[in-house]
């Protein structure tokens, strides 16, 4: 039960070097699911969140909705979608998008909401229209919060995309589930480690993005060191 041996045998297995079951292919599949889900979720959640945050209406509903969405079990959503829509990327995209949307929605709403009302008034005062105020004033100020929400969503999606494998699709979950079925611990462990590495890499990437997105003046205000901790959401698989 030596972890190094396991990882070693996982990496040196020829099936994992090239071909459909190769590490490179599975990582790409996994990233593809995750990226598609995040993009779809952002498309829906961010505009809605900006609107809610700017008008200040529906904020309570948003947090309530996010809370409920957090409770939906991904395994349930995936199996249901497959039964209704057949095995295919849709089966996985629907639950993953549903998972990623709430943090993005809440982050956008809270971020815009948190803009200093005096600054908003000033913007209106100098003649900016509402959309201009939103996009030229509120959004840049909200960007760090929104990116933090995106980071949470991304980590959650990456961890949960492992569930795609239960219904026969690809991604790193393939290693976890196939390893479980064939009692091949090295494969399962290898898959798990890769998911963690991917999640950590993505977190670092977002940390950098947040750094650059913060207007220089606000960089001195440290984003609370555990606002980005996955404490707020976890994969639902």
């Amino acid at each position, binding site marked *: 039960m030596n972890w190094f041996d396991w990882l070693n045998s996982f990496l040196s297995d020829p099936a994992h070097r090239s071909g*459909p079951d190769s590490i490179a292919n599975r990582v790409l599949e996994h990233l593809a699911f995750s990226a598609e889900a995040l993009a779809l979720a952002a498309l829906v959640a961010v505009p809605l969140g900006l609107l809610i945050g700017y008008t200040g209406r529906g904020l309570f509903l948003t947090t309530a909705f996010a809370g409920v969405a957090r409770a939906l079990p991904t395994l349930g959503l995936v199996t249901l979608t497959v039964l209704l829509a057949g*095995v295919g990327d849709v089966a996985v995209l629907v639950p993953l998008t549903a998972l990623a949307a709430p943090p993005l929605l809440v982050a956008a709403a809270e971020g815009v909401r948190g803009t200093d009302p005096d600054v908003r008034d000033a913007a209106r005062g100098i003649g900016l229209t509402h959309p201009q105020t939103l996009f030229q004033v509120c959004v840049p100020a909200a960007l760090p919060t929104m990116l933090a929400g995106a980071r949470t969503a991304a980590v959650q999606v990456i961890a949960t995309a492992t569930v795609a494998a239960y219904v*026969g699709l690809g991604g790193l979950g393939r290693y976890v589930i196939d390893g*479980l*079925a064939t009692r091949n611990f090295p494969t399962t462990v290898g898959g798990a480690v890769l998911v963690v590495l991917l999640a950590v890499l993505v977190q670092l990437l977002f940390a950098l993005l947040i750094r650059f997105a913060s207007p220089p003046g606000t960089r001195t205000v440290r984003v609370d060191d555990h606002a980005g901790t996955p404490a707020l959401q976890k994969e639902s698989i």
Partner: protein
Amino acid sequence: MTTRLLRTATAAVLLLGAAACSSSGGGDPLAAGSSAPASAASGKTVVVGSANFPENVLLASIYSQALKAKGVKVEEKFNIGSREVLYGQLQSGALTVLPEYNGALLGYLDAKSTAAGTTAVNAELKAKLPAGLAILDSSAAEDKDSLTVTQETADKLGLKSIADLAGKAQDLAVGGPPEFKSRREQQFKDAYGLTFKEWKPTGDTTANALKDNTVQLGNVFTTDPKIVQLKLVSLADPKNVFSVQNVTPLVNQAGLDATGTAALNAVSAKLDTAGLTALMKRVAIDKEDPAAVAKDWLKSSGLS
């Protein structure tokens, strides 16, 4: 004053609840007994396990209720995983009884075995099983792995048996549970000289994957009612790769006494393929509970 008391009381209740739950090992409304490995003494609990597909759950339920009818204490652990996971648990005694398929079990223990027919397979099994494990009587009921195709594929490629795949296999994809590839890839190569284009882990969606042409060949279990429902065709297996697959109880001898053995053998005596297929239709198509279907069968067979 009262709010303070209320606050302390609430905190105390929450903490006590935590202590109570964790110390009693978690009140478990579903388990009948402890999950510790069974020890060798009579009057102990027999743990009936099953693999993660509905037919095995049904068979395990039949065994479990047959044992209960004869006064044996039973704990059920169904839908756990594949043989690769279950076998070790049976050896350690964490599970006592598993519904097995003799040919597949023999293949798991000795991939090179060429035994054919129930008698030969069972004789080899008795020789190859480690000390402490044993098979009881086999039933006539069989549920085999298969290579199944849609009617269209069979017509298009002129397929009646697996041997007809020669020369065509390299363009075809095979679906099945994740362990299908690791178990069968070499066997198909050795017996029929076939190498397939790819192996997709379609698991429980195999029958439908055949219909959508995600895979052209699939491992659909022969008692699966979807074969009839979706008009699929199972290819003949002249080289006997899939061997015989009689439903046979595999037991950890230390955990089962004579009463239990007799009860399970009585079940094997009455179970046949037609009966099993009919039961599976009730479970998989009519969506009846495996436990209820098992109960009916036991009653109509005079075993409960």
